């Protein structure tokens, strides 16, 4: 097979084990298909980026992921046209000065996530980020965007960076994450800098018996289908404009191969959507009566309160309170009390420190048998089985 004159040899330097990089590469592919441009593409068979010898590579152009500082260094004095792809930065000096650069717009990603959590009625927010590392400067950009957004609304939100993921420290990091989650004022909307991080949140909430999305609403970034299959509560996520990043990078390189030059040109690509699923479908009750009632139930639900007492506290008749509940939540006040008891029982069981009988008493169930019946009806298992399920080593 001989190379025609117009076939350029192009290297794609990406660590395409993540959906983000793979979609950028897909975007490059779509651009080539749409234009009938033929490039002889070089990329590693395992989709990992290896830089050894890249400076001596005999090709015509490179599209590379500049989130990795090693890539920036290796391509610093590259003689062929290079288009850089990566994170957006507030600090101009973080961009390679001489190259065209296609960025995912971190500020807009965070604005979309934040806007969505506000839309579902939340008023308290937090961010789960990543430990600072040269390879994930984008996580710090997302932290800064988070702080700017909240500051503009006169709010303050906690940021938790957690630990980098490792098998040995996994249980401990999850416990710490749970502890952080338990301390947050509820209800809270938490943004995670990636779907992978958002999955940790879901797992920690499950462990700590925190209801998602009622107490903690979660939204990630990447819309990673693989992550979605690993979580029991379907994860909401912001969809980055990855394919458009790929198309834009390919377009600029295409023009550069024909002599155009774009030193210092930066194109920011906004997110293209939100996949709204259960993890962020928080529904705050609009009626202040329902809100007050739920507040009362949260405080005294485990002390054997009845619908009558809730209505007294709220200051409306029992029948009108039932009507408000039916209209807004689709269930009775009694059911709401039961749900609360169940949630508390679940979180106590997850702590493993108490016997079932003790928990039944502490949660205000009239008998152990009744608690068993409620568990079976609502969760399809016994309290014991639920506890076993929580005790299983968590897969990562």
């Amino acid at each position, binding site marked *: 097979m001989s190379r025609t004159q117009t076939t350029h040899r192009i290297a794609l330097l990406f660590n395409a084990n993540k959906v983000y990089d793979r979609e950028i590469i897909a975007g490059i592919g779509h*651009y080539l298909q749409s234009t009938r441009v033929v490039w002889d593409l070089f990329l590693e068979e395992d989709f990992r980026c290896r830089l050894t010898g890249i400076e001596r590579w005999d090709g015509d152009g490179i599209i590379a992921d500049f989130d990795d500082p090693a890539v920036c260094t290796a391509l610093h004095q590259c003689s062929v046209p290079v288009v850089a792809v990566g994170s957006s930065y507030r600090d101009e000096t973080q961009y390679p000065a001489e190259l065209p650069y296609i960025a995912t717009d971190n500020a807009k990603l965070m604005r979309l996530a934040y806007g969505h959590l506000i839309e579902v009625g939340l008023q308290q927010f937090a961010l789960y980020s990543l430990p600072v590392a040269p390879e994930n400067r984008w996580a710090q950009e997302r932290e800064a965007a988070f702080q700017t957004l909240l500051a503009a609304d006169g709010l303050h939100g906690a940021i938790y960076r957690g630990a980098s993921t490792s098998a040995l420290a996994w249980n401990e990091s999850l416990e710490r994450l749970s502890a952080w989650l338990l301390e947050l004022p509820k209800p809270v909307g938490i943004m995670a800098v990636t779907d992978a991080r958002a999955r940790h949140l879901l797992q920690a909430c499950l462990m700590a018996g925190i209801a998602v999305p009622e107490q903690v609403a979660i939204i990630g970034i990447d819309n990673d289908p693989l992550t979605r299959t690993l979580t029991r509560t379907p994860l909401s996520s912001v969809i980055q404009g990855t394919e458009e990043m790929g198309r*834009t990078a390919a377009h600029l390189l295409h023009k550069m191969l024909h002599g155009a030059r774009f030193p210092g040109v930066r*194109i*920011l690509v*906004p997110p293209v959507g939100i996949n709204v699923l259960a993890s962020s479908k928080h529904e705050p009750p609009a009626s202040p009566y329902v809100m007050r009632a739920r507040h009362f139930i949260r405080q005294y639900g485990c002390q054997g309160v009845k619908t009558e007492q809730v209505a007294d506290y709220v200051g409306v008749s029992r029948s009108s309170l039932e009507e408000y509940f039916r209209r807004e939540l689709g269930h009775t006040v009694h059911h709401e009390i039961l749900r609360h008891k169940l949630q508390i029982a679940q979180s106590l069981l997850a702590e493993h420190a108490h016997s079932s009988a003790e928990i039944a008493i502490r949660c205000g169930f009239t008998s152990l048998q009744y608690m068993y019946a409620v568990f079976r009806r609502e969760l399809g298992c016994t309290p014991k089985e639920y506890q076993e399920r929580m005790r299983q080593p968590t897969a990562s």
Partner: protein
Amino acid sequence: MTRSMQISSAVWGRLPSGDAVTRYTLRNAQDMQVSIMDLGGALQSWLAPDRSGRLADIVLGHPEPADYVAQRSFFGSLVGRWANRIAGASFTLDGMRYTVDPNEGENLLHGGWHGFDCVFWEVTEADGGLVLRYESPEGEGGFPGKVAVTVCYRLDDDGTLTIDYDAISDAPTPLNLTNHAFFNLSGPGTDIRGHILTIDADYFHEIDAALIPTGIAEVAGNAFDFRTAAPIGTRLDWPNAQLELAGGFDHCFVLRNNLGAPQTPRPVASLYDPASGRELIVSTSEAGLQLYTGNYLNGQKGKAGAAYRKHDALCLEAGAFPNRINMPDPEEVIVRPGRHYRQVTQYRLGVRDDA
């Protein structure tokens, strides 16, 4: 299609001349509200729910009727007799040379000095819609023939606003009608750079410095390729000489599946706003779709004290190709006595949860 549309009307304000301007509001089962003025037949506001059911106004408009006539920004207006441009403000028809209003440099734009956007339309309720009539006298804007135009606005329960145009003339004349709504699906306060656009077109009309078409070009391999959804902000930033000429998009796309002059509208474009979840789907019977990204917005007085800035909204104007009357075989844009001009365009507004 279900239609439980209700219509109400009220005097909205007065022109300096003292003429009262009436606004008619169409309402559907999902509480969507579309307001139409008798002045210019303009789509003055469109309140539509977002992902969580909150209503926002998704079209630009002026705070007072007088601004529509004084500023002529064509916010939501019906445009005629000729939407877009006619090069040199002249054309030849049946061997006769006609000169029309050169109201944009040497060219005619949007009907001339006093277009359909400046006149009062007679409004009635009929056939489950709002029917607007205007009789354009012979010689208006320099065009031959007396033209009787009927435009019907209808709002369906699924969020479809249908704009149905019908016209007859007592003498041969070119005619190209459209609605010039400026959309921003986020509602007030942000620009449209984050909107995601799809247009079913393989070709577009390249333009010269006066924005007159010079010939068609492929969308493939450049910023105009919206055959797969793309964010508008990114495309505005792609290096492109055509975009530099207009300060953004002000180009007519050659829509697919335009076999002759079909009367049945087919879906040709979609616009999605990830922030609100609102999605607009455009269907039309027309051959062309002008994408205009609000490049000349520079402080026009808007609703609620707003001053509109560049790229605060965009237009998707369905119609014949700009300057089509001066292109080869212009017969399809000429109305002759005994024949009807017809065009149907539908804007369907809904909500989408994922991309």
